[in-house]
């Protein structure tokens, strides 16, 4: 009897092994072909002088040496960091602020939430079209209302802050959703107990809401950080890196090296640099998520 069961389970295991691979293989095929293979390929390309068709020879680490001395590359790194400074913290704060506004509503809650979130589902080219139209120097309604005819995206001082504002308008809804979920997870009795002890609304906010929302805040900050390192679409559409390269960010620099300068190998080196930074930041994200789970 026992023997029979054991035999049955062993044959099921062997069959199970085949079944399991049948389930895994379709996804794995795509994963290996279009993620693992290109990932290995990009590392190899960075050691070659390939053009964009992939023709070239091995040149060792000379791309990395060139990258370390490439003023344009470092400029693009600084522009990316500048963009991160302009977006990550403000986007998180605005998201938190909107979440606070939304959670206290009762009747109009869904409408207000949708209004703040709606830009997030728009294609990026619609977002930039909207921005270019509203901010048009001559006919834009914002120029009309404020009476200043600034061509924001053609002005080296205003171009990057302009891109940052557009990005915040577009993506803040995402942060808001995470904060709303976080605010719902704060037990109501904490607030009630604090009120009974005589804490006013301001104190309740700073001593209950703020510390208890911190795990969400740190998650949002890291997610934003990863996302904004990869900034490409908005700059490509709004400024193409200009004026005078003032908005040339890392990914756009990679794109230009690859598809306009026809330097696939060197562009791959830029990509590797970006990957390294993002992997470090992502490791931070995993830590945050794990810490929250184990709590």
């Amino acid at each position: 009897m026992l023997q029979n069961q054991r035999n049955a389970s062993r044959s099921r295991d062997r069959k199970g092994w085949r079944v399991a691979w049948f389930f895994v293989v379709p996804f794995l095929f795509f994963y290996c072909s279009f993620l693992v293979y290109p990932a290995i390929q990009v590392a190899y390309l960075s050691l070659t002088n390939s053009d964009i068709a992939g023709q070239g020879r091995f040149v060792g680490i000379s791309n990395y040496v060139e990258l370390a001395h490439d003023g344009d590359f470092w400029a693009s790194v600084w522009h990316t960091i500048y963009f991160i400074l302009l977006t990550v913290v403000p986007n998180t704060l605005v998201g938190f602020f909107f979440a606070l506004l939304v959670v206290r509503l009762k009747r109009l809650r869904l409408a207000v939430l949708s209004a703040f979130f709606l830009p997030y589902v728009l294609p990026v080219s619609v977002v930039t079209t909207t921005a270019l139209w509203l901010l048009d120097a001559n006919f834009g309604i914002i120029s009309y209302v404020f009476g200043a005819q600034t061509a924001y995206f053609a002005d080296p001082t205003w171009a990057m802050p302009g891109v940052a504002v557009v990005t915040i308008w577009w993506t803040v809804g995402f942060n808001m959703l995470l904060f709303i979920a976080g605010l719902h997870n704060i037990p109501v009795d904490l607030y009630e107990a604090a009120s009974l002890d005589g804490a006013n609304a301001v104190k309740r906010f700073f001593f209950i809401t703020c510390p208890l929302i911190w795990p969400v805040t740190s998650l949002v900050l890291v997610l934003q950080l990863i996302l904004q390192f990869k900034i490409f679409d908005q700059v490509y559409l709004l400024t193409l890196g200009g004026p005078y390269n003032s908005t040339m960010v890392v990914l756009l620099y990679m794109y230009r090296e690859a598809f306009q300068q026809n330097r696939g190998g060197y562009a791959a080196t830029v990509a590797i640099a970006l990957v390294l930074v993002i992997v470090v930041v992502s490791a931070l994200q995993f830590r945050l998520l794990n810490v929250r789970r184990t709590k």
Partner: protein
Amino acid sequence: MKTRRFPILSTVCTMLTLIMALLWIFPIYWIAATAFKAETDTIALPPKLLPWPPNFDAFIYVIQNSPIFRWYVNTIVVSVSVTFCTILFSLMCAYALSRLEFAGKHVIYAALLVGFMLPFGALAIPLFMQMNKLNLVNSYLGLILPQIATPLTVIVFKQFFDEVPRDFRDAALIDGASDARILFGIFLPMNWSITWAMSIVTFIGTWNNFLWPLIITNSTTMLTIPVGMTQIQSAYGIAFAKTSAIAVLASIPTVAAYLIFQKRVTQGVMAAAGLK
């Protein structure tokens, strides 16, 4: 309790919230309003706040004089295929990772977690070369294939499957059900809402994807809407009603998907961020 003590403050706060919300969607209203104006009215000063009576010239012009219909078809084909394949393959893979024992399981999961960190933009160059060699530049397959392998969907489904009690599968196995039947007959219906949520989020994400279609297509007939509309705009020059009309047409599917499936979109976005 706040409301009881400061009713006026609360009302003021609500008013401010409403004003903020209106300001926030004003750009969307404005681009929609512009699309329904005659070209000369768009640059009239002071601006006309309400496009009344609505003027459909811009829409008619755009539909008749641009490949927008073709781009719509392209984007639908790509988004639907990517969504269907991603969800199906991810469900299968997640089921195996969550419930089946097999060699290499932990390696695969670890590989997914690592792959999750790799930014798509950094892989764009070798992917383009690969597609170029396979002769898939300017083709549906070239647009679709690289967008299917998103580890995030698998990770999310696995987390949900992990919470299904063991007994469900054990009982079904005793009844003689195959794993395929267990996945599609028990696990899928039990996790219907997250599956929908991930499908809609994947659909919106693919529809809106910009970088990959930009790289892999250059012939006018193979563009997707988000990339195609930028071409047309540079061709039109200053024609605010027409560019707005295209923008409106380009966003209808994603905005509709959001407004209809609001709860699911919220759920999907949260799950993708690591919150349930």
